[in-house]
């Protein structure tokens, strides 16, 4: 059975639909075609923008290549009446080949340039906004990136472990699984692991970073919209990997200060009660 033109048309139509949806993706569909963003954190927004730029270049290359391929197959396939037609015996064309090699290289130069234009916005922490919380703890930045400008911000130690996240705040308070952070404040995460490799990822708040035992890794975000952002461990860490969820709950700086103070008091109170009980229960007085 030959490659009928009906099938060919169908294939062309399908490809055209795919290409059109890539190029003219409406807002509703955009979510399926680009990485997550929307928490107002500049790193996530910039990754999203960079992805769209690259996607446009990729779409042009894709449509060009697939279009030429399909056209060649449909146009140059052997027809029944062509019993003895001998194809053009072309073995190559040096200038054409140099042309597309240089062309491919140029496309990659463009991609490289736009990547390095967007890189600082993704990598370097932003300045804490005017309404943000004030500094707590030393401000660190990712391996070799600059400290965020200004002296305001928040550093949280993230201790990853099978299959939980433990967040330690500068004032001594700590929490598990749900991280409470103030909005408009640059939050630096100091990632480490106490057992196997885990990877911190909240899609709407930017890229992921591994928590590798023996190393410290750092990442940052700055949420502008209040709300809860969901994420999970991205590196296989054992049987509970799928359950190792993480949430970031962004609240106003005032609410945050209340919460972190209350959390510290509650922990201290619980520690005192536990110490009391230990003394009561201990057989040796």
């Amino acid at each position, binding site marked *: 059975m030959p*490659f009928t033109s009906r099938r060919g048309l169908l294939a062309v139509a399908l490809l055209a639909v795919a290409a059109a949806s890539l190029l003219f993706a409406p807002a509703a569909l955009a979510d399926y075609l680009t990485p997550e963003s929307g928490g107002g954190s500049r790193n996530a927004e910039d990754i999203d923008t960079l992805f769209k730029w*690259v996607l446009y270049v990729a779409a042009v290359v894709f449509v060009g290549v697939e279009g030429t391929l399909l056209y060649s197959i449909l146009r*140059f396939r052997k027809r029944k009446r062509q019993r003895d*037609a001998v*194809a053009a015996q072309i073995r190559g*064309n040096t200038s054409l080949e140099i042309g597309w090699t240089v062309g*491919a290289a140029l496309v990659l130069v463009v991609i490289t340039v736009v990547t390095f234009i967007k890189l600082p916005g993704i990598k370097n922490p932003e300045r804490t906004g005017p309404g943000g919380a004030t500094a707590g703890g030393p401000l660190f930045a990712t*391996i070799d990136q600059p400290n965020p400008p200004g002296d305001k911000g928040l550093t949280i130690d993230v201790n990853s472990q099978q299959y939980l996240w433990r967040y330690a705040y500068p004032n001594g308070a700590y929490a598990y699984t749900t991280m409470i952070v103030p909005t408009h404040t640059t939050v630096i995460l100091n990632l480490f692991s106490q057992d196997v490799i885990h990877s911190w990822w909240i899609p709407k708040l930017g890229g992921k970073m591994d928590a*590798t035992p023996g190393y410290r890794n750092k990442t940052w975000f700055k949420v502008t919209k209040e709300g809860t952002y969901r994420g999970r461990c991205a590196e296989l*860490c054992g049987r509970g990997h799928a359950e190792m969820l993480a949430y970031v709950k962004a609240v106003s700086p005032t609410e945050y200060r209340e919460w972190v103070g209350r959390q510290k008091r509650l922990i201290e109170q619980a520690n005192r009660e536990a110490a009391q009980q230990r003394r009561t229960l201990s057989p040796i007085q």
Partner: protein
Amino acid sequence: MATVETALQTRPRPQIVAHEARPEPSGWTSWFTTVDHKRIGILYMATAFVFFLVGGVEALLMRTQLGTPENSFLDPATYNSLMTMHGTTMIFLFVVPMMAGFANYFVPLQIGARDMAFPRLNALSYWLFLMGGVVFYASLFYSPPEAGWTMYTPLSSSAYSSGGGVDAWIFLIHLTGISSILGALNFYVTIANMRAPGMGWSRLPLFCWTILTFAILIVLALPTIAAAVTLLLTDRHFGTHFFDPTEGGSPLLWQHLFWFFGHPEVYIMILPAFGIISEVLPVFARKPIFGYKAIVVATVSIAFLSLLVWAHHMFTTPISTVVLSFFFLSSVVIAVPTGVKVFNWIATLWRGTIVMKTPLYFAAGFIAFFTLGGISGVILAIFPLDWQLHDTYFVIAHFHYVLVAGAVNAILAGIYYWFPKITGRMLNDTLGKISFWFTFVGFNATFLVQHSLGMDGMVRRIYEYESSTGWGDLNLISTIGSYILGVGVLITVVNIVRSLKRGAVAGPDPWKGNTLEWFTESPPPPNNFDVVPYVRSVEPMKDIRRQVERDTGSPQRETELTYEEAEPVGA
């Protein structure tokens, strides 16, 4: 006027002193003792294909679990084992040995040799490969490994993976690794020394060029993984701490060693696929390959670059930005020679007289969707984007486009193209095309949507997800697609079984091929060739057909495939 005699110059017949003539061993036991490259090739291909089906069933079990949210079909331990075995099987027990099988069978035939350079070593390679698979699958009876095919430490250390599964995996790596290295040396020596008279390097078939490059990459990359798994073995059992951070070791060392092997491994799998495509396209376009030298140069430069890109698998680990930028740039550079190949393949089809047979379908499918895998590869190489996409279903989609749309399509093209040579019978073309459309639709339904899932936050290697994530619909599409893909593969299996006995008789050269394997009978006799023609171009069979036409006056209609009359109507 030239005569057939001068065109088909024969080699001087080697002087062999026979002390006794032993009868050819026959019967099923002869398969255990054979050193014939063709029978070893068949053993390789048949074994690898069985592992392909096993790995496919593992994939379907995983897809069934993921088809709906909060599914309880598999528990996490089983899921993690299936995932580990699927990856390991497809890479070490299917794609690489399948390519080695094709190479075993067709490299000597394409270069006009009697056998491989070291026939006994060749047999050893096969049996080591099989034993690697047996040792690995034996872990099913105690505790299959659960740490993923990448075996990242410390998860794979004895503290977190105490069962013997990881050790079974280590021995699989050693056995299949030695097998591959011995095989690679054998291919290299064979291609370097045993080519037909007249076959200079610029007349070597492109499939042999890719196998030569594949062999060099194996020799460069596989010793690294052998060293790495040995360190892991001593860490696990003999008290060393190479990868143990609590004693000054480094889990990142494992990742560097693993990926220094792991990325070239991708090209070890895909370069022979490029070779198959470069053989199939010119035959069915009835037109010479476009830019032979450019394709050779691209093959060699891809292999060279593949040794410089390993840390693009490690963009989220603690590494400085300068290093990340280097690996970003070296990775995108690979897109240039790869793009050149794609353009050359399309230019081969351009203005051809394309004969639409099943091998051409799979080859066209290869170009179409390998290209998509290449484009998503460039996206992943951009490290700020990889920070979002790393370890998600976007990555899964990317490498399945490379390895299923790429390697598997090429393998199926190779099976449909070379089956007549191996068995003397044609595979059914209609069934082949049905199989193509099933795999085509199934594959894209399975993997296209996974790009979106990854960008929506679905990470790899999770055995379940909450319904509140909203990933259920796309996962269901993916699962249905995987079953369609499975049916497509099954149709080819049926076709193979059916055609072994009932296929149309192929004759020596059913496709009017370009290379020397079509010069001998189908299936070839144990000595391959009684005479070896003098090779005057990269398409010796075309030269021979022209010569015959000149000498006998009977037109050798280049676009007419000879077997068609022999195929029973309605088969």
